[in-house]
């Protein structure tokens, strides 16, 4: 009898637990969820938001593997992000799930007004991954989503997941995720930044302006790229607090990533010391981590940046002599002075023009103080605009690649 009562009790308990936990299970069931791949947030009238959700379309077995599924975009205008999500839930008849959302796009217009409310709301959501990329689009976020048509990927989700990978070897876009953005938003030593996005259609008549140096001064919305994929990402959107204060081009993004030690290698055009008005393309690899020292003994911070690179000459022409130590030294010197000027210009731009320490140079300031109060009194965030920069670059050009002399 005792055994019967015990078994019955266990059975009833199991039933109760199944019922209790099934509601959570059902709410997270695949049948009830709509997986968002990307969110685009634009500003609308009366302080409202126009939020676009991009969903993937399930591939039907009849369509074949080669056919690209067309993503679905639903747009809603609402007073807040959470209300927008709720409205789309109602419209779709399914619950939006953002655990696979890979990219969050803000329009430049909204970023100028400030995006902290949206960032806090998204971070508060358990589904949003800290690794979701943040893009500030020069065009409408909705239009950016519509024009994103990856050519080499069948799945748009795969494209969103991997499009930042090229920054490790081009240095044209930063690795800007919502986790890092939120961290920088609250941080007292740095400021947030995002990937700069835009359309490549507006620059269709710019080809006559292209030269070796201008290749590096491009930004999204202003590049000479043509292709089926209308959206492009080049450069950095610089923030001060939660508001965008400016943008950086490809060359400045390379500088940003180098000082941040976030770049494996990069290609750069330097003035050819052997031939005036000509440029040499050099593949540079950081030899050491960038050394940053900040002297805060005066109210005007003095920042010393030291970078070391090892390089190989990439561009080759007839009569190139890259086996001579004198020639290699001369190229190294040219590279040093060019990069010193580029890095210095970049740092002064972030300091004087933007007053935004996106490189987190402020972290090197912390050890100069004993207490938080002393650091707060120094007010690094506001004092950054008074900083002086001294950049030292040491490059060692080794040779050409497969060809050393022609």
């Amino acid at each position, binding site marked *: 009898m005792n055994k019967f009562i015990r078994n019955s009790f266990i059975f009833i308990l199991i039933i109760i637990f199944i019922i209790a936990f099934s509601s959570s299970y*059902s*709410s997270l069931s695949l049948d009830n969820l709509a997986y968002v791949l990307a969110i685009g947030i634009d500003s609308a009238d009366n302080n409202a938001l126009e939020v676009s959700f991009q969903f993937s379309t399930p591939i039907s077995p009849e369509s074949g593997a080669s056919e690209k599924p067309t993503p679905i975009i639903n747009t809603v205008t609402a007073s807040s992000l959470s209300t927008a999500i709720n409205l789309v839930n109602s419209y779709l008849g399914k619950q939006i799930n953002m655990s696979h959302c890979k990219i969050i796009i803000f329009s430049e217009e909204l970023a100028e007004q400030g995006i902290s409310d949206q960032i806090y709301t998204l971070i508060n959501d358990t589904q949003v991954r800290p690794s979701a990329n943040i893009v500030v689009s020069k065009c409408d976020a909705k239009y950016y989503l519509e024009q994103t048509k990856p050519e080499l990927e069948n799945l748009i989700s795969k494209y969103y997941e991997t499009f930042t990978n090229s920054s490790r070897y081009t240095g044209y876009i930063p690795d800007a995720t919502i986790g890092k953005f939120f961290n920088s938003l*609250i941080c007292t030593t740095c400021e947030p930044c995002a990937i700069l996005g835009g359309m490549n259609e507006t620059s269709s008549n710019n080809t006559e302006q292209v030269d070796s140096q201008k290749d590096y001064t491009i930004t999204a919305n202003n590049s000479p790229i043509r292709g089926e994929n209308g959206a492009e990402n080049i450069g950095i959107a610089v923030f001060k607090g939660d508001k965008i204060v400016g943008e950086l081009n490809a060359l400045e993004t390379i500088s940003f990533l180098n000082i941040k030690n976030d770049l494996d290698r990069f290609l750069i055009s330097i003035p050819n010391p052997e031939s005036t008005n000509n440029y040499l393309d050099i593949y540079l690899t950081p030899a050491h981590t960038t050394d940053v020292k900040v002297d805060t003994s005066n109210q005007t911070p003095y920042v010393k940046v030291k970078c070391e690179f090892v390089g190989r000459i990439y561009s080759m022409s007839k009569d190139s002599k890259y086996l001579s130590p004198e020639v290699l030294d001369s190229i190294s010197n040219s590279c040093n002075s060019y990069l010193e000027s580029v890095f210095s210009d970049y740092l002064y731009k972030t300091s004087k023009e933007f007053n935004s320490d996106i490189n987190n140079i402020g972290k090197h300031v912390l050890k100069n103080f004993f*207490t938080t109060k002393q650091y707060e009194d120094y007010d690094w965030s506001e004092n950054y605009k008074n900083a002086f920069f001294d950049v030292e670059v040491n490059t060692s050009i080794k040779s050409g690649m497969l060809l050393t002399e022609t």
Partner: protein
Amino acid sequence: MSKSKIGTVEAIMLFLTIIVVHTILSLPKNILTSMKSASLLNLIYVSIIAIIIAYIIFRLFKKFPGLDIIDISEILGGKIFKNIVGIIFITYFLLTSSLLLRNFSESIKIVYYPMTNIIFILAFFVIAVCMANRLDFSATLKSNLIIVPIVLVSIVFLFFANAKQFTPERMFPILGEGVFNTFVIGLSNIASFAGIAFLYFLPPLLKEPEKLKKITLISVGITALYLILSVSTLLFMFSFFITTNEISPLYNAARYIEFGTFFQRLESVFLLIWMLAFACYLSIVSKFSMNIFKKLTNLETNTPLIDIFGLLIIGLSLFPKDYAVSQTFETKIYPSLVIGIVFIFGIGILILANLRKRKELKHE
């Protein structure tokens, strides 16, 4: 419980159980909020003090071989005092474990079971604990012996897997809010070593009581290292834990672990390990509470108490109206309870008992 003796390694793991569960919740964040960049310096300072206190406790126990704090309080103040001490420790164990369980369950509810009533999540743990407590204590100890090292390894993994995102400069300014805050107000972080409470009840349960010193020092040492590792992970990774409150900060750190596009979302594995650790902790705490109760009431067996203590844990954990109340308990009241009961009350009893013993010896 008294039948099964505790081995040296089992005792160390038992000690670590408390720190493990508390670290999963908001302990590292509380340290960061109060100490800011001086958190690591404060932890090193507090760890040294904790080692000294643990050694003092060991020395104070030396004159009472094979006795726990309940037996010693009987020697000191008779049966009434013994009952008072026993009830205080039972209340401390049940209250703290219940409210920590509530906080942990709230985190699980937010992340995985948004539609499930909190009572079922609490009951899930308590039923598991009641079933485990029906078995011999050695079953819980052996489970703990497996789970706690896994948790320790998971924290080491968490540290190294996130190392790429670290900003070690965040440990500066080295004195944080100043010398007074770091070394005087920061002394309250000694509450992180709440595991010392188990030391009061260990001597009669040890297989090798002569190894109490070794157990004490190793346990406190590992606790210190574990805590430093957990706090370092959060301090170096995030700037926002100093100003922003988040549920389960280490869970948040686990969300950042990614190895390429293949190994992602490892936080689920962490949460599973932490759930097991929490069940072990509850089982141990309720076993100790029942053992004290058995001692006070001269019961022969724990069995009739298992379900009652289980229901008590559920009842107490449902007591806070919302998460804010249980969080306030964890951040504000719990440290005071640990300092008051474990460090002042417990050591006070031992010192007074030692003085009395010395007086008696002098008279003889």
